[in-house]
Structures are given as structure tokens and as C-alpha cells.
């Protein structure tokens, strides 16, 4: 859990992402979208498919212009990605790192989307979000590394080893396709009805408290301090804690836990 996560009982909301996480997410998302579009324009497709005839897209057939925009977007994309790794790494916020059993849980969750079985209680992130995060992070890392090699070649070493150039080019191209697929899957996942309440979170930073209590009880549990007399006792069995979620009176805001989360990050993948 990020240290900014907190319950706002008076507003019926929970802070899910802080401003840094929102900026990171949208910097990567918007620059990634621009990279994707200008990457497509770097294929000689815009003129062939008459995109150059569309209002405002006459530049799409100019490879130098789209390369320039590709570079601009890359600066934002790479800076945000490296910042994300270091910032959350140093703070020890690893809530999006997959946990043991995430694969099995993900299958159960996906089944529940189709009416088979019930969802297990979630932490801040769904198990498939954690898996998708690692997948997307790997795709982004490969795109950045291969893109840096290609940029270096463009600037300083047009006669770089052909083997290296071919590796960089085809890694960039293959992961470009995977990036498109991951992007579509990401949008598809967020549009699923049970996930829709999270959309608010990635725009506003907060989600509804009733939604979070219902679907992310393990996250809420981390944020809600236990009564003082219970703190001195041994931890209760998880099942009993679950039963109590939603039944306890909301804690006073002044004692909202700051230090509860020694895990959790970031942003939606």
C-alpha cells in the first residue's frame, strides 16, 4: 500500500492513487499512445492508406516529422518509466509485484467475470493486475532498450553491426505489436463491469469506499486501524477479520494509518 492511501469516510471515498502515481500513469499512457501512433506512421502506411488526406494528419506521411514526435514522446516515456522504477523501488512500494498464487487466482477471477464462482477478496490490486503489470513492464523495458539502440544508431553509428541493428529492430517491432495487444487488453479489462469503479481512480485518484470495502477488503483492512485493545493482542485469523469488514464503525480520520503499507505502489497497469 502506498503511504498516501487513506479512507475518507466523510466523502465515502478511498484514496487509491496519489498525484505522483497519476502523473506517472498518464505520462506513460499518453506518451505511449503517441509512440504507438507515430510508430505506425514510421511504417510507410499513412500515405498508402490516405491518412495524409485526413484533416490535421497531413504530417503523418512525413517520416522525419513523425520521428521527431516519436523522439519527443520517448523522452517523456523513458523518463516516466525510469522514475517509476526508482521512486517506488526506493520507497519499497511493491504492491504490483506478483505474489504466490496470482496465476491461479487470476483464473478464478476471470471465471467469475463469466458467472462461474465468486471473486476472492482482493488487496489493492487484483491478481491479474499484478501479472499484467509485470507483462507490461517487460514490454516497455524491451521497447525502451531496443529504441535506445536504434536512436544511438540514428545519431552516431549508422554503420553499427548489422546483427545488433537487426536484433534491436525486430525486438522493437515485435514488442510494438505486443504493446498494442497489451494496450487493448488493458482498456478491455477496465471496461469490464466489475472493474469499472476503478476507472474513477485513475482519473481522480479516489474510488468509492463502498466499492473498496466490497471488493478490496484486504486493502481496506490494511488502512483501518484496529481498536487499541486489539492491537496488543495476537492477530486474528483472516476469516474473522473478513467478517468484521464493513461492520466496524469507520475510524476517526485523525488516526488513519500512515505506516500501514509497507508494500503496494503505484498505478493501474
Amino acid at each position, binding site marked *: 500500500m502506498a503511504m498516501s492511501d487513506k479512507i475518507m469516510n466523510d466523502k465515502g471515498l478511498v484514496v487509491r492513487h496519489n498525484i505522483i502515481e497519476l502523473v506517472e500513469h498518464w505520462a506513460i499512457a499518453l506518451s505511449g499512445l503517441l509512440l504507438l501512433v507515430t510508430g505506425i506512421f514510421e511504417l*510507410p502506411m499513412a500515405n498508402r492508406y490516405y491518412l495524409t488526406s485526413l484533416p490535421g494528419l497531413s504530417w503523418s506521411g512525413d517520416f522525419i516529422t513523425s520521428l521527431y514526435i516519436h523522439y519527443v514522446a520517448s*523522452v517523456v516515456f523513458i523518463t516516466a518509466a525510469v522514475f517509476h*522504477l526508482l521512486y517506488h523501488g526506493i520507497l519499497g512500494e511493491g504492491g504490483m509485484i506478483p505474489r504466490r498464487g496470482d496465476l491461479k487466482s487470476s483464473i478464478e477471477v476471470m471465471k467469475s467475470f463469466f458467472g462461474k464462482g465468486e471473486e476472492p477478496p482482493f488487496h489493492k490490486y487484483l491478481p491479474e493486475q499484478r501479472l499484467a503489470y509485470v507483462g507490461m513492464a517487460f514490454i516497455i523495458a524491451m521497447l525502451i532498450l531496443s529504441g535506445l539502440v536504434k536512436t544511438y544508431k540514428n545519431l552516431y553509428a549508422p554503420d553499427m553491426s548489422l546483427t545488433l541493428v537487426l536484433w534491436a*529492430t525486430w525486438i522493437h517491432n515485435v514488442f510494438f505489436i505486443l504493446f498494442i495487444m497489451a494496450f487493448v487488453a488493458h482498456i478491455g479489462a477496465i471496461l469490464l463491469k466489475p472493474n469499472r469503479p476503478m476507472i474513477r481512480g485513475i482519473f481522480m485518484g479516489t474510488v468509492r469506499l463502498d466499492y473498496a470495502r466490497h471488493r478490496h477488503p484486504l486493502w481496506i483492512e490494511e488502512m483501518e486501524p484496529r481498536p487499541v485493545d486489539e492491537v496488543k493482542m495476537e492477530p486474528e485469523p483472516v476469516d474473522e477479520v473478513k467478517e468484521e469488514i464493513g461492520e466496524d464503525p469507520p475510524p476517526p480520520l485523525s488516526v488513519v494509518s500512515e505506516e500501514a503499507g509497507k508494500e503496494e505502489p503505484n498505478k493501474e497497469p
Partner: protein
Amino acid sequence: MSADKKTGLNRRAFLKVSTGVAAAGAGLSLPREGFAAGRKRLATLIDLSRCDGCPGKDIPACVGACKTINMDKIPKIHEPIPEPWPRKTIEDWSKKREVFNRLTPYNFIYVHQAEIDEGGQKRIVFVPRRCMHCDNPACATICPFSANHKYENGAVVIDQELCFGGAKCKTVCPWEIPQRQSGVGIYLHILPSLAGNGVMYKCDLCNDRLEEGKLPVCIEACPQQAMLIGDRKEIYALAEERAKAMKGFIYGKKENGGTATLYVSPVSFTALNGTMKKQPGRPDMGPAERRMAKTDKMGKAVLQAPLYGIAAGVAGAFMALSRRKDRVQGGENGHE
């Protein structure tokens, strides 16, 4: 290793060639190791004071030799050639292979005849035209499949097994040198109607021959020794020397950011360019800026971006840790 071997050039042979004294066979015999691929940066010199267009021949010798050696380069064309969609451009030169007065997929060099008026007197200058093998060729660096590549020896070579024929290389070349043949290539095996449209062809400086220690065939065939190849520095120096001697001009040194082909001419290239109308397969000789240069500054920022991320990430994290510490201390103080 001798100095000659280090530069990749038999100096005696080079000088013979450069002064035009050598007999064609003996003078052009260059050491095998000198042209081994990827080891030496080469450049070519085209001396327009020497090229006479090969009078009496049906085709200039360089053009004829190039056509002959590349006769079977393009595989059999798929018939019918798939119609691309939605833009239905098909470029088929397979039935016009004999064309030699412009660049085509079957003709990588041609000789332009420039009629110059010098103070009322007509002067004819013959200008062999082919790929300039630029120092930083956009045609190669931004090929989306790296089908076009600049080798360490300076040759810019299209791999016809990888090329999709999208003609991006032609679009970004200031001289629009590469030429497309539809109906061949890898695109036929993928989505022939939707992506790709053949293979791009152009001069590859006879890179295969260079690897074998042979000269490019156009250079070997020239009876006037109007074309030379050698160590880049020496060719550049020789071009300067010849231009100075003839009070002439050089083209290719700065064009498109520099090239591995230098033209030396007794007539200004502005005058020569005046005789050239840029049209398909017939490049002009005007000023050619390197358009990619506009992206260089931003490209450098891309290479620096990981550092921006590291600086921001570390600074941000330590600020957050500091705030967290202050809050914890504040909390402790509050409880006291």
C-alpha cells in the same frame, strides 16, 4: 603491417589510377585485404573531367557492366502482380529491363549528359549518377525492418530478402535513388494486398565484390579511370587536390550531411544542376540538406532520458522519505 595495407590501398596502384597513367588491368589491381568488408572506410571519386560518356558505345561502359552483373539479381516476378490496396500503385520494370537512361530496379547507374553554355561556347559534361552512399543515410537508418544498412566500409546495401518495398527509403533520400519493383519479395508471403509492394533496388557499391577484394564493376569497367575507389581520407584528399588543380568544384562532401561519393567537376554544380530536371529515376544535383538533422537534438534528449528518470526518481523518493520521516516524528511528538 605496411602503411599501404593499413589504409587498405596499394598506394602505387592508387597513384597510377589517380593520375590515369596505369593500364586498366594493372593499375586497378587492388589488394584483396584492402577491400575486405567492414574493415575500411571507403569512398569513391567521380571525376567529371575524365568521363566522356563512352562515345561509340551503345551504352556507357559503367552502365553496361552494372547491368550485366546485376542481370539476374531480381527474381522472377509474380504474375499477376498483386494489386495493392487501397492505393493501387504498381511499379513493374520487368518488361523494360533494357532502359539505361535513368535509374530503375534493373539499372543502378546512368550517365546524364549536361550541355553547358560557357561564355557562348557549348561544353558537354557527362555525369554518372547512382547512389551516393551517404555517411548517415536516412534511407538505411529509418528503414522499419533494417532491410537497408550502411556497412562499415561505407556501402549502403538493401537486403532484397527483407525489403517490403514500402519505398520509405526513396521518400527520405534527397535524390530519390532507390527504385521499386513490384511483384517480388517477402511481402508476397504475408499480406500482399495490404502491406508492402515489392522490393527497392539501388547500387550497393558491389559490396559482394568488395568482400572478395574486387573493385565495383563500374569502376573496373571505366576506360577513362573517371571513377576511383579507395581509403576515404585519401579519396577526400585527392578530390580536393584535383578540384584545386582544375579550379573546379566538389559535390557530395557536404550534401545530405556528407557522402562516400565525391564528384569533381571543372564546371560548377549549380550550372550542372541547371541542366537536370528532377524527375522519377533522374536525380538532380542541387543542395541536399540532411533532413534527419532536425531530429538529432531531440534524439540526444532520448538518449539522456534514462538519466532524467534516475535523477527525478532518486530525488523524488528521498523527498518522500524525508516527508514520511517528518510525519513519523511529528506523530511521535504529538503523542508525547
